């Protein structure tokens, strides 16, 4: 037996009678059959919503940023809220695929592919927002460090430039990690397919044959990717939080922000994983692979991150009071009783109160409760970012600059359109690529042994 616990041949995490290797191939390949009308109906609705979002964006390009309801002091508003929200969603995928891999948490194997896909698509969605938000997206390349004729370089002391580096690194490394994980599975698809499909999969599988040499280097590289992705995922949301924490705005200028954001990101990411995987499990009949214990484990992680988040909320209030700084105190009080107070209390309910139901095991495996709480968590986490950005900017140091922001149809349409963009990518993915990892699930189920030559 190797020291690498991942390859242990003891019974794996699959409940209710272990599937065999051939079962795994059959069940996963079955998810790639030609989809029915229901699927295309959903895709059409989502495509319509996306088209609405694109229309709103075109209006903004044509008429200018005023369409997004932006005016002093509310220059960040919904776009940056949604940007941070989507970056946060991406974090659970990398947590499952890299951090839980390093910890040898074997329950991750059947859910990691779906959540990793979610990461890629969430980051792709998030990446749209700085560009939409900045206006004049035709000069978005100014963000990239390149030699210009005046030798003007980006200001590397600005957290916004750190953000460009962090997000683009995160997208690149996640995509590479994801693609490398897919290669042996695509080889399995190739071997089961015929005709044109076979040729496409053969091209994408890069000639993978599962030889000892390929596996040896593959496993080493995979471990290294996981080790690189782990500090990266923590750094990315820390950098995003510094977009705020480096500014002197009351309520933002805090060392609390990095862990606060990372925790919130994992919290919302797990909620999104549940929202995607529960219907997927139902429609693809993946019950032997995504069992109650997987839901239970994810619900526990949601509970833990919720408790940590509640602690951070308490810290936020304590620091505002303990600082003795009138502007800090006023900004915090404004969140509680000001014009945005309903959204603040909605956030507290969704993030700190609703997940407490997961203290009961029955709730952790009860699909309707899980689903409802996950949706509440997403709403709560979106409003958490809203409550940092909008009331924060609304109530600065100087009463003359106070200002209330009200959403407009255009920026609301773009935000809703971003959800459609995310779901259209995810729904397309699960129909052309294995949404459950064939190889990793097989690794955790008992390997076929005859037993004549016991070892």
């Amino acid at each position, binding site marked *: 037996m190797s020291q690498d616990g991942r390859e242990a041949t003891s019974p794996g995490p699959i409940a209710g009678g272990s599937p065999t290797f*051939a079962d795994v191939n059959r069940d996963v390949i079955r998810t790639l059959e030609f989809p029915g009308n229901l699927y295309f109906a959903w895709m059409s609705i989502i495509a319509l919503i996306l088209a609405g979002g694109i229309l709103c964006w075109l209006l903004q390009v044509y008429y200018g940023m005023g369409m997004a309801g932006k005016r002093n002091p509310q220059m960040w508003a919904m776009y940056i809220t949604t940007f941070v929200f989507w970056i946060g969603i991406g974090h659970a995928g990398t947590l499952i695929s890299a951090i839980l891999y390093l910890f040898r948490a074997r329950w991750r194997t059947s859910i990691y592919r779906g959540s990793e896909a979610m990461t890629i698509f969430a980051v792709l969605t998030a990446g749209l927002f700085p560009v939409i938000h900045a206006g004049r997206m035709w000069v978005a390349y100014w963000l990239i*460090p390149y030699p210009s004729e005046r030798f003007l370089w980006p200001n590397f002391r600005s957290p916004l430039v750190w953000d460009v580096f962090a997000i683009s690194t995160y997208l690149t490394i996640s995509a590479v990690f994801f693609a490398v994980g897919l290669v042996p599975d695509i080889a399995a698809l190739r071997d089961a397919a015929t005709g044109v499909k076979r040729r496409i999969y053969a091209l994408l599988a890069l000639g993978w044959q599962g030889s*000892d*040499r390929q*596996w*040896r280097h593959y496993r*080493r590289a995979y471990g290294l990717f996981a080790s*690189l992705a782990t500090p990266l995922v923590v750094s990315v949301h820390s950098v995003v939080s510094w977009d705020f924490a480096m500014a002197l705005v009351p309520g933002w200028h805090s060392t609390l922000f990095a862990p606060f954001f990372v925790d919130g990101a994992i919290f919302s990411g797990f909620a999104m994983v549940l929202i995607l995987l529960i219907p997927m499990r139902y429609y693809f009949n993946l019950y032997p692979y995504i069992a109650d214990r997987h839901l239970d484990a994810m619900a526990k992680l949601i509970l833990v991150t919720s408790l940590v988040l509640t602690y951070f909320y308490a810290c936020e209030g304590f620091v505002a009071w303990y600082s003795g700084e009138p502007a800090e105190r006023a900004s915090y009080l404004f969140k509680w009783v000001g014009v945005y107070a309903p959204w603040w209390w909605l956030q507290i309910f969704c993030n700190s109160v609703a997940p407490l139901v997961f203290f009961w095991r029955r709730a952790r495996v009860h699909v309707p409760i899980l689903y409802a709480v996950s949706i509440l968590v997403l709403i709560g986490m979106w409003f958490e970012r809203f409550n940092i950005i909008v009331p924060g900017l609304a109530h600065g140091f100087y009463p003359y600059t106070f200002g209330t922001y009200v959403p407009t149809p255009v920026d609301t349409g773009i935000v809703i359109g971003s959800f459609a963009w995310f779901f259209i990518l995810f729904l397309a993915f699960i129909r052309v690529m294995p949404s459950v990892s064939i190889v990793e699930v097989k690794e955790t189920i008992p390997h076929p042994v005859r037993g004549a030559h*016991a070892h």
Partner: protein
Amino acid sequence: MAEAAGALGVFAHVDTTTHAIRELRAKGFGAISTYSPVPIPEFEEALTGHGLPRSPVRLFTLVGALTGTASGFALTIWSSLKWDLITGGKPVVSIPPFVVIAFEMTILFGGLCTLLGLLITARLPRLRGSQRYDPRFTVDRFGVEVACRPDQVSTVEAILRQAGAEEVRG
């Protein structure tokens, strides 16, 4: 084009496959490769006769990561010096914020070089793999392929059969 002389055994079990590899090595056959749907450390141990061999991919990662760190600092420091305007009373070369850029570049270059290392060491992508490859090797069968002299083929086939191969071909 005909494949070089050799034989392939298709196995249904991990332990019979490992046994076959050990038998072949004991008889002095060295050019053995295995095929499996999942990584099987027992195969690698049987192939080498000792612990798992080290993969050179890690060297690519190290070199890439260090290059990333160096280029992150180089880019930030060099470009700050190109326009050495003091802002906010901070030094022109202010290291703490540059650490963020250097860190991200470390991960970026490290990851890309790991990918490069994987492609080079595992010889991917390849247009033509082994012609003896069987599609069942991505489902639930294990393969042992031996390259040998034409006159040894029958010996190899006998060993594979005796070890419990379901199917043996040249």
